[in-house]
């Protein structure tokens, strides 16, 4: 348990540093990927919705430190993504090659949409624009392409899947 937390913390710090230093230079059509979101998707997929949500919260909070938007906005969006990924992937074919990129794509769409909508609700009106929709769409594809590349490292840090403690529906009784 402790070893897993340490491994995930190391991965999180490394990805945030890459996000802040390297990936502003690697934009596609003006859009950078969200490495924290990609890792959150993988964590949720591997070890369940609650841990996915906690990892997403930590990753989002770390990224929020470097943004102008209110602290907690990315944390909220990534918590939702981590939980949703864990809940949905319980019902998926876990060995299929196409699952991680698909989850990266869906995670990007959900995370970006939550970020924009909650942002508008808390006073970031400038997020309500066609450009935001384009950013979310392009970012989701970028995230999907990066998911298979990050998968081995993040999956190693998350440890083996815990099938016994998973249920198809995260809110399930």
């Amino acid at each position: 348990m402790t070893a897993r937390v340490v491994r995930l913390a190391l991965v999180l710090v490394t990805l945030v540093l890459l996000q802040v230093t390297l990936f502003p230079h690697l934009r596609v059509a003006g859009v950078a990927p969200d490495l924290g979101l990609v890792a959150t998707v993988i964590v949720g997929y591997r070890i369940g919705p609650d841990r996915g949500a906690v990892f997403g919260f930590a990753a989002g909070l770390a990224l929020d430190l470097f943004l102008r938007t209110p602290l907690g906005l990315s944390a909220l969006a990534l918590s939702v993504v981590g939980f949703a990924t864990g809940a949905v992937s319980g019902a998926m074919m876990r060995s299929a090659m196409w699952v991680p990129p698909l989850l990266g794509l869906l995670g990007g769409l959900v995370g970006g949409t939550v970020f924009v909508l909650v942002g508008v609700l808390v006073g970031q009106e400038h997020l309500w624009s066609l450009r935001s929709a384009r950013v979310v769409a392009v970012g989701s594809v970028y995230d999907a392409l990066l998911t298979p590349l990050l998968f081995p490292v993040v999956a190693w840090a998350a440890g083996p899947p815990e099938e016994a403690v998973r249920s198809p529906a995260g809110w399930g009784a």
Partner: protein
Amino acid sequence: MTAFRRGTRRRSVVLLLLVTSITLITLDQRGGDSGVIGEVRDRARDVVAPLQRVVDDAFSPIDEWIDGARRGAEIERENRRLREELSEARGRAASGAAARRDVAALRKLAGLTFVPGEVETVVAQVVGATPGNFEFTVEIDRGSTSGVRSGMPVVAGDGLVGRVDRVYRHRSTVLLITDPSSGVGVRLADSGVPGVAQGRAGRTELALEFVDPTTDVEEGELVVTSGLEGSAFPPGIPVARVSSVSGSDRALEKRVLLRPLVDFPSTSLVKVLLWSPPGAQP
């Protein structure tokens, strides 16, 4: 029973995270840059700054090469145009010097606080861009130790870049005039009619808002900061040129778009004007 407990635990964890996030959002919005959250942000950026600088330095030649390859023909045309303008400007410089002295004297007499050329400046290098996709900011390598304060105007050779948004010890974040949350009080240089140059999401052009629809606006007309009372910028800083005008005089609203004079992606050096609006907190 076990499944029920597991479900309850998951619900609790997620609800706790959501409540914490919303609490943080509220605290950050109420507290601004001051307080614990602002301090944590400052520290995080100071810690990452050296690494960011190393990566930026490594990528700088690559970025410049890509930009040069993409804009080769445009740069050549611009170079020719600049040479012509330079020779013209040299001719005007001699007569301009006397006029500037007169303007400076008149401004002083009129009690205006900003006299171009007399405001102390700090030269800064652009060292990075935001990691986010929903904001238009750049990081510069000067901070509070160099006298930079939040709200100070930032200019480049061509004109206005933006204003200092957040200040750290050795770095600052500059909100570009193209950011959708940026609005600059301006006036049309020829007619003197005031308006607001508003950033537009994802667009390089600005929208000129709150302009009387009966105003005669010409394409290519220069737009400068108005410096009206309470303005965040001193008067007279060139901002943009009118790039398009649509809507008739009878229309309730005239749609005027502005092209900023500063080419943001290729700007590497800027100046921070150590200027604050009269009456602002130092």
